[in-house]
């Protein structure tokens, strides 16, 4: 019995730790550092129908215990992802969660239909919340009705379960969560980044060329934990939690708050071995906490 094992729609995870989308490319770079088969899953970089160059640089800026990014969904486009990136990942024994972005429903549908047929793609992560792209993304993520329709459209064509990635930049995250659950989502992932800015005090100009960027890292963890807690109180589909995870107790906290698994984004830039380290640290920490299987942690705080 593997006490770290977690079963989710479409995903049989060796452990609940996976790199978050956009922080791990399509795996090639981190594969130089460690064996990707160790990971619970991999959320690969957002894929769009056409290749995208993304935003001008600077695209990142450091903030206290966090960072801003406005990459702008740079990616090689559906064709290349399906013909090169995903097949390359097949050498590893790890399920892939394909993050899908677009500007219109048709884009999303086209990408999901095709990418969900790739043999190692076990789930779709529907990115309706990317704050760094001008049109589309943001309305999908902030309007419950639109989010629900998109979910339905994608569910109709996807060959694998669909997880919808929620934006934290909303008044009531549970309203969106309930809407996409009604739309047929198999699970949720949250949070994406908080919209933020930084300025250059010398010039008064924004540091990020795009003006605004998405805030991530330990700074946002309290907001992420609160939203995971709220969302898991109001829907019954499973949640993959993320936002500032960097230490083993962060994994414990996200699961206590209600998450079934945990994604790690920014921390991969700070400690490039953070994912395997978390996986290695979990059994010992479970022992200290007197927990047998990690699944017992999920939603613990709701049951107190």
């Amino acid at each position, binding site marked *: 019995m593997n006490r770290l094992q977690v079963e989710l729609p479409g995903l049989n995870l060796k452990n609940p730790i996976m790199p978050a989308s956009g922080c791990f490319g399509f795996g090639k770079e981190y594969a130089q550092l460690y064996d990707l088969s160790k990971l619970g899953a991999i959320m690969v970089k957002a894929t769009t129908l056409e290749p995208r*160059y993304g935003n001008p*640089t600077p695209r990142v800026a450091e*903030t206290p215990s966090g960072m801003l990014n406005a*990459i702008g969904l740079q990616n090689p486009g559906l064709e290349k992802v399906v013909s090169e990136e995903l097949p390359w990942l097949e050498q590893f024994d790890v399920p892939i969660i394909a993050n899908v972005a677009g500007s219109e429903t048709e884009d999303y549908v086209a990408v999901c239909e095709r990418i969900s047929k790739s043999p190692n793609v076990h789930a779709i992560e529907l990115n309706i919340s990317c704050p760094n792209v001008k049109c589309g993304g943001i309305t999908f993520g902030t309007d419950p009705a639109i989010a629900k329709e998109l979910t339905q459209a994608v569910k109709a064509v996807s060959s694998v379960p669909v997880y919808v990635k929620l934006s934290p930049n909303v008044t009531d995250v549970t309203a969106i969560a309930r809407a996409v659950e009604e739309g047929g989502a198999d699970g949720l992932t949250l949070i994406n980044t908080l919209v933020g800015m930084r300025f250059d005090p010398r010039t008064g100009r924004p540091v990020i060329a795009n003006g605004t960027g998405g805030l991530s890292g*330990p700074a946002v963890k309290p907001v992420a934990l609160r939203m995971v807690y709220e969302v898991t109180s109001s829907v019954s589909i499973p949640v993959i939690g993320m936002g500032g995870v960097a230490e083993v107790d962060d994994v414990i906290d996200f699961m206590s708050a209600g998450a079934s698994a945990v994604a790690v984004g920014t921390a991969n*830039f700070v400690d*490039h071995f953070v994912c395997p380290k978390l996986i290695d640290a979990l059994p010992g920490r479970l022992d200290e906490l007197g927990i047998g299987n990690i699944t017992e942690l999920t939603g613990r705080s709701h049951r107190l």
Partner: protein
Amino acid sequence: MIRNERMEVVAQQEIAQNIFELVLKGKLVEDIGTPGRFVHIRTTDGFDPLLRRPISISSSDSGEGTMTLIYRAEGKGTSLLAQKTAGEEADVLGPLGNGFPLAPAKSGDRVLIVGGGIGVPPLYGLSKKLKAAGAEPVHVLGFQSADVAFYEEEFSGLGETHITTVDGSAGTRGFVTDVIRQLGDFDLYYSCGPIPMLTAVSDMMEGTEGYLSFEERMGCGIGACFACVCHTDANEKGYVKVCSDGPVFRAGVVKL
């Protein structure tokens, strides 16, 4: 192989105003190979400052297992790094990036090496290797002023060395291009420094084979996050990543 190592601080000293020379020891040094590569340093165990800082490897000594970094202590991260003293440890990821190609330099070649400010450090390791390969390095190093200039002696030991300062407090007053203009022809050139300098140098050296080292804000430092891309001249959607395709590119590859 890329390692994440807690390297030993062998020595650290301030060699010019806010310019520090840091000597680190560890296994990572074994894999450095070519000059011009860089390391990514975590400057605190906490989360503020959060990101690693990219710093070029100025030179390395595989016998001793040490490498030397030279950097300006300016913001939060580099100021913390500057507080480390011999015997402490530094959290280093590397070696990263491609470095300067040495193959283009033939024995006897007259090679121009142009550095600006904090772009100067990696050129020292480069010049040593070029010299060892029988080329004749000629250095033009630009600084703001005399108090932030460094390594004049070290470069002079390897070949002809010209210093320029913006305020004229050391060497020739003005920019590196003012000096290069008077140095005649070269077989090859290498440059590292601020973008305006790289632009001016590559314009002036048009027609000569050259290699430029770039800086860009980084996230991961290993090619995974797309923070550090630059447009290429090739086509609209073409790009390279400074951290993993670079930081060194043949002149003309990156759109300036």
